[in-house]
């Protein structure tokens, strides 16, 4: 497991005609006066790797807990693989796999024994179970620790075991709540690769704070903030929708005079609002209308006789988009310790 995960396709894998693997309508969850989820609407296409993002207290874990039948919604409906969600629904659980954000297991059990137990409960048996457990232990890097008691496992090993128990029975839909939070960089890379390989076969709902991981493997993302859906779209659309009118030009070295001419020419253009030079000779051109300007920059470059190493429209990172959408917390949203306060009913 050393290869880099394949980049996500430009759009979600499911067409609009495909019925979603998960459908959520008006999902609301109240804990007393606290409003943890507020009328959430969501469609997760079958076979996609769906990132659920949001700051602490946004409602990601609450959403996953309701969709996995571990918590009950206060209002609204949701179906997973065509089954209406609710408490005590074995028919729902037959179709899903789940990894808790803080996976806990029976400390007296061996890692292998746990996978055998969960596999049997999920309907895997006999030779399939033995082969499946062996393969999964190998895939998550726990083959050597398989006969050790889980009580002696590190946090990272427990998380790997958690991934293994969630995937062993090849469920149609997998919910992974912060699946790589306890892993070292190598473990994180391996696990992301493992998740990326599920694309197209298994629907993965992935909740995480690590936006770089989402950019690496997710096709679609939903951003939650204080129980409300802020944005939901294919990742590429989200990033493109927030692209800024900035072009980044990187001239090849030793062309100082020509570059100076180019900078002067760009600065004089009426469609250009700002030109700056950055580290390594990079030129950042801020334009008034990106579509119109993109046709006019390159002729100026050619005219100035500048050879470019690269030319690209500046693309925001998911982190920049996330911060733009969610924004910094307002002072009135912070509690006395500086944490974002959960919303109360009526806020």
């Amino acid at each position, binding site marked *: 497991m050393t290869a880099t995960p394949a980049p996500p396709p430009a759009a979600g894998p499911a067409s609009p005609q495909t019925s979603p693997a998960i459908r959520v309508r008006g999902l609301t969850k109240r804990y007393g006066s606290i409003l943890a989820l507020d009328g959430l609407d969501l469609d997760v296409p079958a076979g996609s790797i769906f990132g659920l993002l949001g700051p602490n207290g946004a409602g990601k874990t609450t959403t996953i807990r309701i969709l996995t039948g*571990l918590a009950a919604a206060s209002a609204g409906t949701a179906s997973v693989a065509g089954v209406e969600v609710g408490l*005590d629904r074995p028919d729902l659980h037959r179709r899903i796999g789940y990894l808790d954000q*803080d996976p*806990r297991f*029976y400390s007296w059990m061996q890692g292998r024994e746990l996978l055998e137990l969960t596999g049997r*409960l999920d*309907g895997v048996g006999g030779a399939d179970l033995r082969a499946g457990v062996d393969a999964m232990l190998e895939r998550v890097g726990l083959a050597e620790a398989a006969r050790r008691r889980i009580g002696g496992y590190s946090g990272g090993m427990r998380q790997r075991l958690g991934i293994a128990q969630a995937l062993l029975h090849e469920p149609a839909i997998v919910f992974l709540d912060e699946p790589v939070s306890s892993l070292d960089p190598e473990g994180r890379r391996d696990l992301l690769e493992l998740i990326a390989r599920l694309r197209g076969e298994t629907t993965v709902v992935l909740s995480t704070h690590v936006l770089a991981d989402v950019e690496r493997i997710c096709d679609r993302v939903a951003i939650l903030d204080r129980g409300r859906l802020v944005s939901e779209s294919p990742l590429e659309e989200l990033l493109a929708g927030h692209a800024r009118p900035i072009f980044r030009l990187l001239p090849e070295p030793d062309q100082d005079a020509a570059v100076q001419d180019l900078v002067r020419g760009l600065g004089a253009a009426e469609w250009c609002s700002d030109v700056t030079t950055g580290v390594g000779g990079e030129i950042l051109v801020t334009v008034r209308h990106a579509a119109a300007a993109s046709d006019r920059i390159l002729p100026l470059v050619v005219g100035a006789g500048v050879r470019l190493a690269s030319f690209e429209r500046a693309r925001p990172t998911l982190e920049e988009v996330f911060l733009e959408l969610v924004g910094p917390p307002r002072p009135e949203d912070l509690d006395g310790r500086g944490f974002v306060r959960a919303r109360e009913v009526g806020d």
Partner: protein
Amino acid sequence: MAGVGILLRKELLEQWRTLRLPLVAVVFGLIGLSSPLLARFTAEIVKAVAGDQFPLNLPPPTVADSVDQLAKNLNQLGALIAILIAASAVAPEKERGTAALILVRPVSRAGFLLAKLIALGVTFAVALVLAFAGWWFYTLVLFEALPIGGVVAAAVLDWLFLMAWVSLTFLASTLTRSTLAAAGLGVTALIVVGLLSIAPPLAAWLPIGLVSVARGLALGLELSDPWKPILGTVVLIAAAVALAWLSFRRQEL
């Protein structure tokens, strides 16, 4: 109920690995072995300690004393052990999150509870078999042979008696996330049922009534109306288990 057999196997393995089953079995075995000894030699020990200055006129011990000694030990220590073991059945699984690990799979909550209850029943059945086997043998050696059929029936009734406390504490364990709170509720139930047993019309229907029935069976005596405490205890167990299920199926994990 799918998965009950798989979960029962896990529960029994857990009882064994966490030493609950071996410890309960050893304690009950010791109760069984020590009861006839205490019945047989307590009078002599007291006489020896009192000496000539306090002449005591104690009647010679009989096989009935052995039966009473076992009943006393099992009813007190056995009930407390039943409460302590049952308190840790569900509450810690909810608190630690292992209940969610199991119940996010195609297993009904009723099946989850049933596997635990059966495992508890097996644990106390094994413990009582050891206790009664040791007790019967030492009673044979020190007193006389008791009818096997009556002793087996008494053991079954003692198991039912312990399962009453197991069930009530099991209910408490499903209602809370704390083992300590569940044990506290179990002890409270023990005290409340004990107080209710003071009222004669009620006592005949409560688990405490099983003690005299078991005593009579072990000694081969004629019994009047033995079915009341059996029926009452079965109803109590069924009600506790039903309430545990009704509560647990609506709980968020």
